[in-house]
C-alpha cells in the first residue's frame, strides 16, 4: 500500500526531519495493538472459516474427496454452474457497459434513480429474488400457462436459473465501471469525436482500453458471485438431481445426506475459485489504482 500522497514526492520525504515524520505516525505500541486486533478479527471471522472448509473436505482422505467431485451428480452440478455463469456474466457485461457509458459520459435527469435501480438487486433478499420469477413464470403466475402450452420451460429449468443468477449479479460490473469512468471524464472521447471518430470507434478505441482492468475486476467478481449464488437459485431450480442442481445446491443436498466430507469437498472447489478470484482481483486492483491515479492527476 502506497502511503505517499500526491503532494509529497520522494525527494521531499527524504529531506523531512525525523521528528516531523514521527508526528504523523502512532507510537509503536498503538501500531502493534491495532495490527494485533485487526489480525485477530480477521483470523476469527475470515481465516478460520476458510481453513475449516478445506479441513472438513479432506478429513476423510483424498479418496473420498476425489470421489465426491467426480460423482455424476457433482459433475453435472459443476457443468450447470459453469453454463449459468457463462451466460449470466456476458449479459451483465453488456448491461454494465451500456449503463456506465450513459451514466458517466452524460448529464441527464433521473440519473440517481437509475443508479439506485442498479444497486437494488444488491440488497434484495435472494429468497425474494427467486420468488418473483416464480410469480412471473410459474404455472400460477403470469406466463406459466402460456409457457406450458407452448412447450417452453423457464423456471425449474436452465433459463430460470440464469434469470435468478443474472438478477443477483446485475450491479457488479456496472458498479466497478461507473466510478472509474466518471473519474476519467469525457475529454478523450470528445477529442476523438472532434477528430471525426464514430460512436463505436470511440467506444472500442478510446473508452474500453481505459477501463479494461476495472472491467476485468468486475467480471471476475460477477463470476464468483454467479457461481456461488444459493438462495435465489434454490427457489427456481426444481432440484432435479443431475439436471437442475448447481454446485451450491448440490452441496446442500449432499450435506443433507450426511456426507459432510463430500459436501465440503465440492464446497472447497468454490472456495478455491474464491481464492483464485482474490488473487486475480489483487493483480487487477493494482492496475486499477494506477489508472485511477492517472485520471486523478489528469483531472487536476
Amino acid at each position: 500500500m502506497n502511503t505517499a500522497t500526491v503532494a509529497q514526492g520522494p525527494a521531499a520525504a527524504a529531506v523531512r526531519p525525523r521528528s516531523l515524520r514521527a508526528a504523523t505516525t502512532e507510537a509503536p505500541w498503538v501500531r502493534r495493538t491495532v495490527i494485533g486486533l485487526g489480525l485477530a478479527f480477521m483470523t476469527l471471522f475470515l481465516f478460520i472459516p476458510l481453513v475449516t472448509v478445506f479441513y472438513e473436505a479432506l478429513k476423510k482422505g483424498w479418496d473420498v474427496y476425489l470421489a465426491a467431485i467426480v460423482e455424476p451428480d457433482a459433475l453435472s452440478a459443476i457443468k450447470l454452474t459453469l453454463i449459468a455463469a457463462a451466460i449470466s456474466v456476458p449479459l451483465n457485461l453488456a448491461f454494465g457497459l451500456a449503463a456506465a457509458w450513459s451514466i458517466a459520459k452524460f448529464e441527464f435527469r433521473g440519473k440517481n434513480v437509475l443508479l439506485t435501480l442498479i444497486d437494488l438487486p444488491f440488497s434484495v433478499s435472494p429468497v425474494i429474488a427467486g420468488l418473483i420469477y416464480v410469480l412471473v413464470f410459474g404455472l400460477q403466475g403470469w406466463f406459466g400457462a402460456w409457457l406450458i402450452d407452448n412447450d417452453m420451460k423457464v423456471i425449474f429449468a436452465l433459463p430460470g436459473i440464469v434469470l435468478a443468477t443474472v438478477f443477483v449479479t446485475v450491479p457488479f460490473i456496472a458498479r466497478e465501471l461507473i466510478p472509474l469512468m466518471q473519474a476519467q471524464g469525457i475529454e478523450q472521447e470528445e477529442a476523438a469525436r472532434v477528430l471525426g471518430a464514430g460512436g463505436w470507434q470511440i467506444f472500442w478505441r478510446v473508452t474500453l482500453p481505459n477501463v479494461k482492468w476495472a472491467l476485468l475486476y468486475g467480471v471476475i467478481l460477477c463470476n464468483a458471485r454467479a457461481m456461488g449464488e444459493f438462495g435465489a437459485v434454490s427457489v427456481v431450480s426444481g432440484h432435479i438431481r443431475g439436471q437442475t442442481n448447481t454446485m451450491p445446491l448440490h452441496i446442500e443436498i449432499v450435506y443433507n445426506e450426511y456426507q459432510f466430507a463430500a459436501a465440503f469437498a465440492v464446497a472447497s472447489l468454490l472456495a478455491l475459485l474464491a481464492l483464485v478470484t482474490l488473487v486475480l482481483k489483487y493483480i487487477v486492483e493494482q492496475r486499477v489504482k494506477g489508472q485511477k491515479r492517472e485520471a486523478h492527476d489528469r483531472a487536476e
Partner: protein
Amino acid sequence: MILSRALLKRHTVLPGFDLALGFALLYISLIVLIPLSAAFLKTFTMTWQQFLDATTTPRVMASYRLTFGASFLAASLNAVFGLLIAWMLVRYNFPGKRIVDALVDLPFALPTAVAGIALTAIWAQNGTLGQWLPFKVSFTPIGVWVALVFIGLPFVVRTVQPVLEDVNRELEEVAATLGANRWQTFSRVVFPIVAPALLTGFALAFARALGEYGSVIFIAGNMPMISEITPLLIITKLEQYDYAGATAIAVVMLVTSFVLLLIINALQAWARRRQGGIA
C-alpha cells in the same frame, strides 16, 4: 433521439446516449423492475387488513427485530473493525499484509451456503471455536450476528480504504505542529474526512445483511420470537401456500432496502460534493 431530448441536461457531442440508456433501461426493466412488480401486484390482492395481519404479527415483528437488529449490530462491528483494518492496511507494513488485504474480499467471493455450513460447524458447542466458549453461539441470535459480520466486512474496508489512502498527510503534520497529539489528530482531522465513506460502508453492510439468507439459515436457531430471520418467514408463508402473505413481507423488506439505498446514494453524492468532486 427521444431519450436525449427528454432527459439530457447538457448538450453533448458524444453519440450513443439513446442506444446505451435505452438498452440499460430495457434490461433493468425486464430483469429487475417487472419481476419485482410481480411481488407488489400480488400484495395488492390483499386488503389492507390482511396486509397488516401478514406483516405485523408478533412473530413477524420479532423477526424484523432480529433481522434489523443483528444486521445493525453486525454492520456496527464491521464499521469499527473495518476502519481499523483499513487503517492497518493503508498505514502500516507487516508480514503477510498482502494476504490479509486479499483475504478481506473472501466473504464477497465465497458462496453463502458454504460460509453458512462452515460457520455453523466452527461455532457449534463442539466446534473448533465454540467449544472454548461458555455460551452458545450457533443456533442463537449471536450466531446470526456472527454470520452477518462475516459477510459485511468487505463493504466497510473497501469503501474506507481508497479515501484513507487519499488523505493528505500534510494536514496531519500541520495538526501536529499546532500541538495536537496523535489521537486528537485522528479524531479531529482524519476521521471527519473518512466519516462519509465509513457511513456509506456501514450502510452497505447493513443493507446486505438485511437480505442475507444462505449463510445465516444454517446457523440460526429458527426459534420463533427468538432466532427467526425475516427471509425464513417468507419461506414459512410459502410453505402454507400463502403466496400473498409471502409477498407482503417481501414488499416490506423491499421498500426498506430501497429507502436505505436512496440514503446511501444521497450520502455518496454529498460526500463527493464535500470533497470537491461532481455529484
